[in-house]
């Protein structure tokens, strides 16, 4: 496996066109619908409403109600129908409003989409793409804010991707649709308004490999999705005090790109994993375990994890902020790994998960 060394495209390439993550995703959908008549978009309020986050606004007018298909609030049925349509030769893109709602379709995703190829002895592949919003930060409380992509990354048979940049939002959909197996795309709700330049012909992007978004020499910040901007901000902060942090954007959460993570850690000898999922049994835990298994002798310090607090995401702003990984906590974790004192006043989460009820 060769690691991709894409620097942040937005920084390196000419600022061809300024747009948002939301519009980049919409353009990806439009492109897919134009180029392949088997593609259709199905989900709650994707048509007339324009998508609950406005991603599919205008697509109904362009492609009509057959291909921009408003579904009843029946997550299990319309996700399962997407799987069935994929079995019968279509290339459905199913949108689920949030990852919390996807639990109503978890049976279809796990017991059918992820399983049919194997259970049928290779006869039935399921080329479906399922998109959903994930993550917190918008004061939407505990039933609209969780980051459960790590659960899905647990499941053999699925590919799980998390576009964190405009380029990935624009160009990950095409390779996801080309994959003969089910692909889940997690769009962090906090990214939709992200505005940047989008190169016109950057894609299709590689969905097999992680990307180094910022090179560095002292520590590897390994992250994905909505936590990427936080990791980059932490790297900026650390640079002012002479600590060079490399930022690795996983992009694909399953299968994990061990090579890119490993090469980074072999250079920096330290790793901090930033993951908005809960700490216990998290994707961050898996990455930490892999680094320990594969790079024990490269590591100069224990792998640090900055995750969400073990609590349903609360509504109140101060509480919500306290529950999520923040730049300050990333900086503090890095300082611990490099053996520098953590300045007082920084909100430092406990290094080990608390035991008992709160853990």
């Amino acid at each position, binding site marked *: 496996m060769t690691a991709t060394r894409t620097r942040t495209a937005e920084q390196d390439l000419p600022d061809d066109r300024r747009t948002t993550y939301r519009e980049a995703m919409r353009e990806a959908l439009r492109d897919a619908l134009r180029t392949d008549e088997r593609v259709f978009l199905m989900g709650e309020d994707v048509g007339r409403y324009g998508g609950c986050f406005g991603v599919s606004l205008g697509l109904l007018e362009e492609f009509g109600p057959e291909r921009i298909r408003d579904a009843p609030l*029946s997550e299990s049925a319309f996700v*399962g129908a997407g*799987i069935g*349509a994929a*079995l*019968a030769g279509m290339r459905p893109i199913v949108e689920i409003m949030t990852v919390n709602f996807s639990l109503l379709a978890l049976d279809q995703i796990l017991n059918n989409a992820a399983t049919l190829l194997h259970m*049928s002895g290779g006869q039935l592949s399921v080329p479906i793409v399922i998109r959903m919003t994930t993550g917190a930060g918008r004061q939407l409380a505990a039933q609209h804010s969780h980051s459960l992509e790590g659960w899905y990354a647990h499941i053999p048979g699925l590919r799980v991707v998390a576009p964190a940049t405009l380029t990935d939002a624009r160009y990950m959909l095409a390779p996801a649709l080309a994959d003969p197996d089910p692909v889940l795309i997690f769009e962090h709700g906090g990214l939709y308004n992200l505005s940047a330049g989008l190169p016109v012909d950057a894609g299709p992007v590689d969905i097999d490999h992680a990307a180094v978004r910022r090179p560095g020499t002292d520590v590897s910040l390994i992250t994905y999705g909505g936590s990427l901007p936080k990791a980059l901000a932490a790297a900026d902060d650390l640079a002012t005090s002479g600590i060079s942090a490399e930022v690795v954007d996983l992009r694909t959460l399953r299968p994990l790109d061990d090579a890119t993570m490993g090469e980074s850690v072999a250079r920096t000898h330290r790793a901090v994993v930033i993951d908005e999922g809960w700490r216990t049994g998290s994707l961050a835990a898996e990455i930490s375990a892999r680094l320990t298994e594969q790079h024990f002798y490269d590591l100069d310090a224990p792998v640090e994890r900055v995750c969400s607090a073990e609590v349903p995401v609360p509504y109140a702003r101060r509480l919500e902020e306290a529950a999520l990984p923040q730049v300050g906590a990333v900086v503090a974790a890095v300082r611990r790994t490099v053996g520098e004192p953590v300045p007082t006043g920084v909100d430092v989460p406990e290094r080990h998960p608390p035991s008992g009820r709160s853990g």
Partner: protein
Amino acid sequence: MNATRTPRTARNTSLSNRQATAHRLALLESMLRVRRFEERCVELYSAARIRGFMHLYIGEEAVAVGVNEALTEDDAVVSTYREHGHALARGVPAEAIMAEMFGRATGCSHGRGGSMHLFDARRRFYGGNAIVGGGLPLAAGIALADRMTGRNRVTCCFFGDGAFAEGEFHESANLAALWGLPLLLVCENNLYAMGTALARHQAQTDLALRAAGYGMVSWAVDGMDVVAVEEAARKAAEGVRAGTGPHFLEMRTYRFRAHSMYDPDRYRDRSEIEHWKERDPVEGLARRLRETKELTDKTRTALENRLAAEIDRAVETAEQAPEEPVEDLLKYVTTPEASRP
């Protein structure tokens, strides 16, 4: 695939007597194949040569065989974990099914599925689904693909009365009716959701009535009478093909055996089972054919011998078939690079 080669459009009544007799004998053969195949499975299971959960269809054969008569090779079938009968009626060879039960490489799911997960993509048999109701959304999606691409095909989904309590049934029924999908919903009401009697799991036990509430054409059928099942299924499938949306058939039937090989069957009265056995769909048809002199003892014996030989052969080939190599454990988790587009 169908029991006879009679034209699909022709009604039984319009067939010549000879053709009609041949057709009825073929229905009998098809049902007997399922019956004898499963009886052999019981022996093999008792001898620990087949493992896993195994759910027998004995008593319900008229449903699979009768419904299959209404389907063409182009149609699709989505089934449940009690699907030996559906698979055999669909034309999946007994050898491939038996090999699957033995967990062999030649099995119809290459040993990954077992009794509950028989698949045959070539025959558009989309498998045994062991999550109650789990096949319904899939079937709606297959039908949706046909609708979107303008193919006039029927997707037939089998499920039990237990699935009527699952959200998947109600979500899928609504979706299918709302979108007018070419779906044939066949509810095998055998009166028990595993061990829970219909009246103990449904507030309203008239399932056809409730399905009608979704705006689907629906009616109840004597599921112990293969001729009645075939007639109803043909009528429903014609309606689906005519573009009038999903149709629902409540097949009133009964399983003579326990829910699975693990089930001690403590929840049913012997008298109830005996009562239903008097309505045995296989022997019932055989009796009618004897009365009309369409079936002689000689023909019956020849039929039994033919089926026994077919099943013997299935068992022999399954026993001799190679096992899946352990090196291939991860083979079908994702599509191999080589076969990717």
